[in-house]
């Protein structure tokens, strides 16, 4: 099932995990990573929607089926999340984010503590610098950045295969989603990640329960770079998934779901 609502005058598209969105239930908002869209959360959203939560797996502005231009900074995206909650009539929600979406979730929780009841942060690090050649390729719209995001993003194990969902080939799925990104979106997102330096400060402000999900083979946001963030948040949990790269939601969907169940 899907829903569309309006934020800042633009349509926002979201899937709801197969159950109608009901703002009266505990809400979980899923935020995708740079260049991707809501479909990255397909193996987590349905469980939450069928277990007492109300789910919104959104396409960020300018991504997937959502209108508007992509927002140019992590802080702007976090502000947008706050307005998103206003638009759907929700005072407080759990935020589950991947990579860029994780930074957005963290920033929102730091600056809007009363709006965020829990955080699930997948594949994030205190800083997420992006190689200049990737930024250059993203700006030029060449395929190199999409290939590198896929190659460095997917763990080596899943580049061979053995996906838990039968018959799906993740390498090409990643490329197919990135290929669909509108011109400028990938560069916008990577530049936003590259510029964001506030993660440690925001982590220090977080008061809600937090779980971090890391992949032991993540080469984009290595678990070692996540640990200082986790250490800065009292009581936070960190789950390290084996044989898993940066795309834990699709590489190790069941284990990622299990980790998120504990907090969201």
């Amino acid at each position: 099932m899907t829903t569309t609502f309006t934020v800042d005058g633009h349509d926002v598209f979201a899937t709801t995990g197969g159950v109608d969105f009901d703002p009266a239930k505990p809400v979980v908002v899923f935020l995708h990573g740079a260049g991707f869209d809501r479909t990255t959360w397909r193996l987590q959203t349905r469980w939450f929607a069928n277990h007492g939560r109300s789910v919104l797996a959104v396409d960020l502005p300018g991504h997937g089926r959502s209108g508007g231009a992509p927002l140019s900074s992590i802080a702007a995206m976090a502000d947008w999340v706050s307005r998103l909650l206003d638009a759907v009539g929700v005072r407080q929600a759990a935020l589950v984010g991947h990579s860029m979406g994780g930074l957005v979730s963290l920033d929102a929780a730091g600056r809007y503590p009363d709006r965020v009841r829990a955080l699930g942060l997948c594949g994030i690090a205190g800083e997420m610098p992006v190689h200049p050649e990737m930024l250059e390729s993203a700006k030029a719209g060449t395929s190199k950045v999409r290939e590198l995001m896929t190659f460095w993003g997917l763990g080596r194990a899943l580049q061979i295969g053995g996906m838990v969902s039968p018959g799906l080939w993740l390498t090409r799925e990643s490329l197919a989603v990135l290929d669909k990104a509108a011109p400028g979106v990938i560069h916008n997102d990577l530049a936003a990640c590259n510029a964001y330096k506030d993660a440690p400060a925001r982590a220090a402000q977080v008061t809600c329960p937090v779980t971090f999900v890391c992949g032991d083979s993540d080469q984009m946001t290595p678990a070692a770079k996540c640990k200082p963030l986790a250490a800065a948040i009292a009581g936070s949990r960190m789950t390290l998934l084996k044989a898993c790269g940066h795309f834990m939601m699709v590489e190790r969907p069941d284990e990622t779901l299990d980790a998120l169940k504990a907090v969201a």
Partner: protein
Amino acid sequence: MPDAKFLKFDTLALHAGQQPDPVTGARAVPIYQTTSYVFRDVEHAASLFNLEVGGHIYSRISNPTVAVLEERVAALEKGTGALAVASGQAALHIAIATLMGQGGHIVASASLYGGSRNMMGLTLPRFGITTTFVDPRDHDGMRKAIRPETRLVFGETIGNPGGEVLDLPAVARIAHDAGMPLMIDNTFASPFLCNPLEHGADIVMHSATKFIGGHGIAIAGVLVDAGRFDWRASGKFPTLTEPYAGYHGIDFFAEFGPQAFIMRARTEGLRDFGPALSPQNAFYLLQGLETLPLRVRQHVANAQAVATFLSTNPAVERVHHPDLPSHPDHALAKKLLPRGSGSIFAFDLKGGREAGKRFIERLRLFSHLANVGDAKSLVIHPASTTHAQLTAEQLAATGIGEGMVRLSVGLEDVDDLIDDLTPALRAAHKG
């Protein structure tokens, strides 16, 4: 910064889709000869049925051995996902049934495998789905054949049996301009010689019985999706873009994005029509896939030598092999099939049907049977077998003459093959 170093074709043919068995350490793909799978608990069972988590429920829908084959073919065809089924015909049927219902229409190349032609031309109309067949080189005719109710453009990379090479980029443009996906039967080329998804096609199908297996011991079919077609923008595919009552109201495209077609084909097509591939057969096909690059290289070399030999023999009127400069699609073949145009091709014997009969009966190494893509060399007379259901008029439209013979050149020593063909040609010629 170095470029991405994705695993290459020969490596994927051996490894894609499989992690060594975590319990036993088995290096080979285990044959999971089971109909069903024990749920961890009640909660797990409900989650599986509700598509909340991935995994297997019942082998009609998915099986771990079959899943390795699916991922491997998806990897080799550069698709986002694949569905393996009991035959190539089952793959074609599930693809069509996933994309359209009663009132749907297909524009297809006229140069198709006889079974596909039969399904589209004779059987599906009974269920309200019709097809217009068009000469694959007549692009204008193809464009004009598309109607408001058209839902698919379909062709073969290398046509059967005339070896017509489909201009994939041009036909993809025709389909896409009309908001239609292009589906390609890539059986004759195999993923080693051509990846139609790289040339604009949206869906690829295989009769895996042929080159993918290569041994002639297992029947199977596979569908692969590029994950690129925008089903919603087209506005003509409610099976993929509207809530499906048969699965908790799922909007497949909204939830699964590039995997929408494969997910619907599996959760409806396999579940309801039921042409599941047996794990034993999937295992056989995986053994074949491991050597696909090696085999196809040799198939191509042998076929080119045999085609060249035939083209100078006085008993032969014409050889329809795209790798020969005389073939009308030679230039296109060099572009789309740079490693060669496969090893299945036809030639016309002087002397018509009787000459064909004498030729086939004199062969010793070539086996007379209805299959292609085997490691062993095969021969058949299309007019009396694979295309026997066609009228003389339809035969002519498909480019099949009474004296046409189709070869599937195998992996034997090519000198032995030519030594087998020589007396057979002499017998055909002398009468």
